[in-house]
């Protein structure tokens, strides 16, 4: 060790009045010299030290945002909203699977030009957003459901944030099939209104029962609809005509009204 930091330099360093080269030199020297480290430490104001230490702890503790969380923050979501969405990122796999199945069905329909597959695609496509709704926020899909529901933040707000964060991508992914189905005319998007009706219906029913049960019940009813109407697979497309579109729009609108009028029911977890 050929040199030590003198008192004056130590004071100037702490006061940040040294030039960059001298400061860097002192810093690298202090790493290996106990005596100079002590001398520098004696010059540092306790308040400043505390604030630096706190800033350091804060930087170390700052939650490591997941890619989804970062993406949401980038598009303008608050860090609170982004965290609420990111908390249950694993629960998204069921709806990704459901969307993948419906997309596969659409691809088969395009490739085979076999009419039955297009009908099956239209029946299955609304299940993606419905599964997304079911896996958004509920007793079975969120491990911290009970802790979450008794927190002061309204459960409906969390439910709506999570549903928006899963249903919108589910619909967007399902819509990837549209460009290939344009030759079907407006039937290429005939699944959209039923999708919204089923998701909104499940949300409305979740003011009475768990959202998972509501979605399961509606999903089974939806799948049973062709049987109840005695529609063969070849005529499944008939189901998506104007009457069903109108009914879907009415169901979706009614569901929104139900959610608005029963919003207080959502804040009790185990009805």
């Amino acid at each position, binding site marked *: 060790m050929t040199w030590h930091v003198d008192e004056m330099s130590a004071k100037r360093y702490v006061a940040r009045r040294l030039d960059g080269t001298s400061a860097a030199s002192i810093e690298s020297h202090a790493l290996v010299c106990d005596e100079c480290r002590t001398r520098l430490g004696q010059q540092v104001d306790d308040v400043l030290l505390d604030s630096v230490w706190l800033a350091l702890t804060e930087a170390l*503790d700052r939650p490591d945002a997941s890619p989804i969380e970062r993406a949401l923050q980038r598009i303008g979501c608050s860090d609170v909203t982004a965290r609420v969405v990111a908390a249950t*990122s694993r629960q998204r796999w069921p709806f990704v699977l459901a969307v993948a199945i419906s997309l596969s069905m659409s691809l088969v329909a395009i490739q085979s030009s076999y009419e039955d597959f297009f009908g099956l695609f239209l029946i299955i496509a609304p299940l993606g957003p419905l599964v997304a709704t079911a896996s958004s926020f509920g007793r079975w899909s969120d491990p*911290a459901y*009970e*802790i979450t529901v008794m*927190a002061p933040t309204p459960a409906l707000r969390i439910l709506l944030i999570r549903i928006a964060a899963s249903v919108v991508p589910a619909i967007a992914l399902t819509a990837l099939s549209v460009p290939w189905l344009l030759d079907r005319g407006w039937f290429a998007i005939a699944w959209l209104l039923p999708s919204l009706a089923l998701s909104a219906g499940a949300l409305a029913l979740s003011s009475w029962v768990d959202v998972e049960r509501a979605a399961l019940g509606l999903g089974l009813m939806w799948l049973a609809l062709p049987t109840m109407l005695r529609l063969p697979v070849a005529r499944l497309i008939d189901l998506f005509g104007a009457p069903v579109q109108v009914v879907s729009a009415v169901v979706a609108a009614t569901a929104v009204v139900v959610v608005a009028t029963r919003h207080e029911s959502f*804040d*009790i977890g*185990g009805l």
Partner: protein
Amino acid sequence: MSAIVQIRSLSRTYGRSPALGPVDLDFGVGVTGLLGPNGAGKTTLLRILATSLAPSGGDIRVLGHDAGTPSGRLAIRRQLGYVPQELGLYENFTAFDFVDYVAILKEHVDRRARHDEVRRVIAEVDLSDVRSKKIRKLSGGMRRRVALAQALLGEPTLLVLDEPTVGLDPEQRLRFRQIISRHAERRCVVLSTHMTEDVEALCDRVVVLVQGRVAFDGTPLELAGKAAGRVWVGDRLDPGAAVSWRTGEGRHRHVGDPPPGAELIPPTVQDGYLLLNGGVPEGASA
């Protein structure tokens, strides 16, 4: 005792099966332990108290706020810390992230102040060294402490803990008792447990629930007193005893109606509970 929680004619049914009540109870500052066999209604009562379950009948007030109204529930939730029986933690979060997430839900909006509060509660449960570890890598006892840390956020007036000592080793249980007793000096703590040792060591008051009804409400000493003159030891198993077990010293401990000349010993909370319940609690071997 000034009541922080007032429960009147509270009941809950699941379908047609009655699970709780009607019960009338008041809870004030201090630790109240709920004892009872499985299915006695402990968790139901605590979930109603934590506003996560609606009662079928009756009233519940916390600090004067009516849990039956949305505004009352919101006011209660702002004063509440809750550890459910089933610990639901996000495995991919660190301990800090999880407690921070709950702090967000508990309306701690300012990030710096929130992080300070998160660090405070994590230090309180002695998890500072592992706060950056993923929850999936924490032991069962540490997970319990993470759950307790989130309940302590904001220094709640009412702390509701459903079987908080399950899975804790003796050292962790002692630490838990320390934390809870420190909190109970100024706050109301209601916890359920199967461990009569916890009640003896921690609670100023014990409520025994049997089939949804209050079978006993008093101090642990009074509960033990229920078995005064009804606990004895002998070298052989006494077939006349209601419950017997062989102790570590090789003698037989009996609870029930002692025969003449029996060697009576002072009763414990467990003895009183056994007689009250007419059965064997989890954790005791008959």
